[in-house]
């Protein structure tokens, strides 16, 4: 019983990290029609910057804030000065974002080396919750909490604010939104920066449990795509449900079929693709 509960919670907490990643990926795709192959780099760089800030300041909170804001800024610069010139040209966009993936990945090994690192858990959260005979680390519960908070905030912004309404309008029809006086270009920059922010947040928060290592950028980028394919592009609900599904599949896959670790994620993805090409919550 305990085994199932613990493994399920492990899957959910990893799923929350994937949600942070996929929410940005999905927003960026939904609004800008950009397949952002640099998204995994945002995650990795967020983790590395967070680690450095933690070493310098000793504060986990500061590491999370500085890490994600720095990468958000990087995202803004990338959108303003590079991606913007390639609006709606999917092939050059793919090359550009893939190029940045290589550039960031190589620079990261120059600055932070090639050996895997972990971010130490904040002391306040390093213990474990004890309920009778059941123990579970606080930190993973904290990740689940942060993930749910972000999800709730995103929902509120999307459905309850003027910004959200402008976003939805621009996703539906960019031309008309522009004609109505919505500053779609600014939205592009905001959304890309915010997507980078969420990915980097995932990187810093994931640091203590997943670790930060060269190649993590590729790994999480691919998992992010699987989440988005399963959940459906441009859908917040899809990113959340897809994230949880992939988190659980990955976790139980590793427990029960270690030889086929990746396959337990990709096989369901292929099935969903066959049955519902637009994903569980995507629009046709």
């Amino acid at each position, binding site marked *: 019983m305990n085994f199932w509960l613990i493994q399920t919670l492990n899957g959910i907490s990893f799923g929350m990290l994937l949600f942070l990643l996929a929410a940005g990926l999905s927003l960026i795709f939904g609004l800008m029609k950009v397949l952002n192959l640099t998204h995994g780099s945002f995650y990795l760089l967020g983790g590395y910057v967070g680690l450095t800030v933690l070493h310098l300041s000793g504060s986990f909170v500061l590491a999370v804030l500085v890490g994600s804001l720095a990468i958000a800024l990087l995202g803004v610069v990338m959108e303003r000065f590079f991606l913007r010139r*390639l609006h709606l040209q999917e092939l050059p966009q793919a*090359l550009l974002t893939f190029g940045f993936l290589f*550039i*960031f990945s*190589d620079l990261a090994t120059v600055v932070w080396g090639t050996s895997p690192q972990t971010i130490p858990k904040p002391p306040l959260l390093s213990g474990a919750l004890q309920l009778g005979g059941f123990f579970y680390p606080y930190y993973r519960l904290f990740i689940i909490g942060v993930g749910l908070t972000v999800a709730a905030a995103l929902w509120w912004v999307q459905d309850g604010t003027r910004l959200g309404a402008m976003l939805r309008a621009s996703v539906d029809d960019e031309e008309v939104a522009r004609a109505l006086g919505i500053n779609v270009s600014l939205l592009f920059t905001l959304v890309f920066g915010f997507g980078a922010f969420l990915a980097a947040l995932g990187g810093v928060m994931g640091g203590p449990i997943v670790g930060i290592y060269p190649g993590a950028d590729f790994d999480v980028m691919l998992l992010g795509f699987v989440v988005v394919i399963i959940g459906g592009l441009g859908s917040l609900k899809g990113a959340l449900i897809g994230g949880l599904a992939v988190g659980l599949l990955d976790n139980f896959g590793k427990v029960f079929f270690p030889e*086929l670790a*990746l396959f337990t*994620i*990709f096989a369901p993805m292929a099935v969903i*693709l066959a049955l519902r090409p637009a994903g569980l919550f995507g629009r046709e």
Partner: protein
Amino acid sequence: MSSPHLKHLGLWPLGAVALVAALTLLGLPYVLSTYHLGLAVQMMIFALFAMSLDLLVGYGGMPSLGHAAYFGISAYTTALLALRLDLNAWLALPAGLLLAALTAVLFGLLALRTRGSYFLMITLALSQVVWGIAFGWRSLTGGDDGLPDVPRPALGLHLPWSLTDSTPFYYFTLLIIAFATFLLVGLVASPFGYALRGIRESETRMLALGYNVWRYKLGAFVLSAAFAGLAGSLYAYYNRFVSPDYLHVARSAEVLLMVILGGAGTLIGPAVGAVLIVLLENVISAYTERWLLLLGIIYVAVSLFAPSGLIGLLRHFLPWRATP
């Protein structure tokens, strides 16, 4: 895309260029060292790989980011058949192509329902399924250690020379790739090739003209995968080693870069792109460890400054050659 100016001149200039190219390629083993001959083999293999993708991207307008899947599947199949069952190249090579083509049928059925960026993502994810299998199924594929000691093709012909030597292997590759290129050129010049271009420009118009667009797209997808598979199997023979790297997205992206760098939709462009990238990779990684950084910069530069490739730049700067 032959321009009308060339047609005025007849086929002579083209024929002359082809003749010079053929003589150069035939003569290379007499001037190059073993190392450089190996480099030439690599260039030819990647030129074929890039041309195969061009059929899809340049002619069919289907931007795949998972083409390494077919390259790798065929390479693994050929290598495994040669290693485990001792099959000769007459069977091991076609078996590789066949499996690559069959996988393409399956993946094509899934991916071809989408287009644009979504198509990029689906092809990427599907190719990653194959990578996952190659990486995880250790008992068959050796996992990330790969499969070493793949034997060079045994043709069973009692020839006086062996393909383990670099010069005979060079001619073997040249012969196969020349034949494949010949087929590809014929393919894009055929009614099928023109229908593909039509689909690239406007699917609805082609549908209205009565073309079965879906069948043409799947056909291009599968043919393109088979040619990629041929390149993969040759590369397995050349390297005498196969690893999950053959299937990695980095390789899919690299071949896409070759296509775009040279100029999509021209066959010759992607071949030139492949030669350039292989050359740069070998020259530059000899001097610096920062090859990845540089490759990243090349990606960015091509996307910003030469999205229609070197061929596009050439057309831009030599307006007298431009098609009216």
